[in-house]
């Protein structure tokens, strides 16, 4: 009958890992306490939360007090960029710097800072999406409050030289934040040796549930909280802590770090195999960001004369889940701001399909897509030829 469906959208979200589910389960049941309570239920929850914080810190090369649990990547980005801007705006540092290829969470929050009086500056990226050193030096000066550069781009997978950029920013007294939602588990992240001041991670990209993330905040970096209320998480993030999910994030983060090298080698080999097959079968296809270092799990490909929306529908109906990399709330495909920033012509960016590999990806699934995708392309082109 129908072959099993193939999930190639791990950059969107991943299934909760069994180890993670097992680790969190007690905190949904018997160990349900509120970590702020003084009784034994509370103490038990508090101990679990503190331990989870330590384990996340360890996975990041950080101290436990530098880890703030959040509800998602978007919250981490908001807290870091807006929090740093608001804490520093009285100091003469008026600018917020970011890149045009950020996740909407960072772009949106930079726009918000601009509404609050910040000067918004955008770094230049080259045709592969890498921030140019010249524009970084030109824009990240001592009048900048906060600079945010995403480590691994969620649409095309390119890896920014974050350790170098963070070191330069530190020299200029600029708070440096990086959205590492796609990077964590794929590139080495170590707060002890790398100079970023704030770093966002998200649980559901690494096998923890949706609804949990963390923001690393370096000691000494002042961030104004977004929410006000109790003193949880040192007042940085008031609200009763999600103990079960914090435990889940800790377990998932540990696994991601432990398995990083092996999993990256596995995914990289599968991605390269898929990419080589597709390029061979569709010689005029374009792989975005191919000229730069890329995380091993993302392949973003455009075939001239096709459109992403139709391809994604046809793929889904054939049992393959992929994405265009950018979608709006309604779930419809929208033109990619990332590809536009790279200077990709509109027709080509409107044809982009992102395939992202992960725990569910096997050699067999990649090979099936390598067969199926070119067949769909051929049909799409035949139709396009018929209507023009």
């Amino acid at each position, binding site marked *: 009958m129908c072959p099993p469906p193939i999930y190639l959208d791990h950059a969107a979200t991943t299934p909760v890992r069994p180890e993670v589910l097992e680790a969190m389960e007690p905190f949904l049941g018997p160990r349900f306490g509120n970590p702020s309570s003084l009784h034994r239920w509370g103490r038990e929850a508090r101990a679990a939360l503190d331990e989870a914080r330590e384990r996340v810190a360890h996975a990041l090369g950080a101290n436990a007090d530098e880890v703030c649990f959040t509800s998602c990547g978007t919250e981490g980005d908001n807290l870091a960029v807006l929090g740093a801007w608001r804490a520093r705006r009285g100091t003469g540092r008026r600018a917020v710097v970011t890149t045009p290829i950020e996740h909407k969470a960072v772009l949106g929050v930079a726009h918000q800072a601009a509404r609050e009086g910040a000067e918004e500056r955008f770094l230049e990226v080259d045709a592969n999406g890498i921030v140019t050193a010249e524009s970084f030096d030109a824009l990240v000066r001592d009048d900048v409050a906060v600079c945010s550069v995403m480590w691994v781009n969620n649409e095309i997978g390119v890896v920014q030289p974050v350790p170098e950029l963070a070191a330069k920013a530190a020299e200029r007294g600029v708070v440096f934040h990086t959205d590492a939602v796609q990077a964590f588990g794929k590139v080495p992240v170590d707060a002890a040796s790398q100079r970023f001041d704030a770093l966002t991670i998200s649980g559901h990209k690494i096998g923890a549930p949706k609804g949990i993330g963390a923001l690393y905040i370096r000691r000494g970096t002042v961030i104004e909280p977004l929410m006000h209320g109790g003193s949880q998480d040192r007042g940085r993030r008031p609200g009763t802590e999600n103990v079960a999910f914090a435990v889940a994030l800790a377990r998932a983060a540990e696994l991601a770090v432990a398995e990083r090298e092996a999993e990256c080698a596995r995914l990289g080999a599968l991605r390269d195999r898929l990419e080589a097959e597709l390029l061979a079968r569709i010689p005029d296809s374009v792989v975005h960001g191919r000229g730069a270092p890329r995380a091993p799990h993302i392949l973003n490909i455009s075939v001239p004369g096709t459109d992403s*929306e*139709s*391809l994604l*529908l*046809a793929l*889904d*109906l054939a049992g393959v889940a992929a994405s265009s990399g950018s979608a*709006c*709330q*309604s*779930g*419809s*495909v*929208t033109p990619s701001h990332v590809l536009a920033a790279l200077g990709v012509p509109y027709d080509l960016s409107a044809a982009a399909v992102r395939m992202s590999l992960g725990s569910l990806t096997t050699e067999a699934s990649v090979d099936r897509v390598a067969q199926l995708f070119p067949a769909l392309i051929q*049909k*799409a082109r035949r*139709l396009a030829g018929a*209507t023009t």
Partner: protein
Amino acid sequence: MAGTIGAADSGPTTGRVLVAMSGGVDSSVAAALLVEQGYDVVGATMKLFCYGDDVPDRPCCSLDSINDARRVCERLGVPHYVLNLESSFGHDVVDNFVQEYARGRTPIPCVRCNTFTKFRDLLRKADAVDAEWIATGHYARASGGALYRGLDPNKDQTYFLWGIDRSVVRRMLLPVGHLTKAETRARARALGLQVVADKVESQDICFVPDGDHAKVIARRLGPDAPSLTRGPVVLADGRVVGEHAGFARFTIGQRRGLPGGFSEPMYVVAIRPEERAVVIGPRDELLGRGVVAREVNWLADPVLPGTQVTVQIRHRARPARAEVVRLEGDEIELALDEPVAAIAPGQSLVLYDGDRVLGGGFIEGSRATTPRRASLPVLGAA
């Protein structure tokens, strides 16, 4: 025309069908009926304009409606997609809507949406997913490559469907075309589609918030566009009897917003954009005995001059008997048996033979006197 026309006899009851789903009761029931009939249903909601946070909830096309369509598909166990047709809809429908008002006409965007967006652009998506059929919740019937009025005379929507390509009719499935609205709602309840069964019907144009089309014009052309700025209200003889706040706010036959003090009721009888003038007159100046339409499209073989047809010049207007007096290229002229009031340029003229849609066009103007058929023989007309 026998009474057996329905969706089911227009082809084999298998194959894949792309169903355009607005999130309303009609298209939801259409999808459900097709699932029942054994089709491989794929639901699609067209995203036609931007849903900003500041757009108030609309009965149709709002984000909630997309969610409703998705829930219905989930319940039916069929896939659902949101298709972004914003840029072509903006160009083919919204831009034209604004330009038509600027020309002093009363546009009918639903016709262009059907012609270009649903039954051309969406049809391409159907091709892309190997869907042989395309379905909507329109109250109309397609059979044997011909299009017929919906069985419920109060709901019939063929007035909006004359512009589609004739070859597309063969691929159309219109499962609610033989139902009344009440029957459709009953089916929705019976099918467990409570989400949509009792939804309020959308009456307005989907992209016109609060029915205030001047706002849409202002957004596209600027608030000082000529069609939105003050001009004279005049009588047919040119006498100025008042002032108006923009001729785009008026349509032929309108009474609201006109100066008073006349011995008989006055109506808008013409709009002259070059003078920004709104012309008013008594009811008999509103009557047309002939009508001219352009951009004619045929869903049947073209009718020759001399043919008797029934025509409709407005949605829900009573069909009128008429004779074709001229057909030149994509322009047609008809003589009306009885005078018809308020023939508005920009609206559709749809030609029928009984229940069958023969074709239609956009009204260019009306004639106060009955046009005569040219006495030349039409020998050799193809």
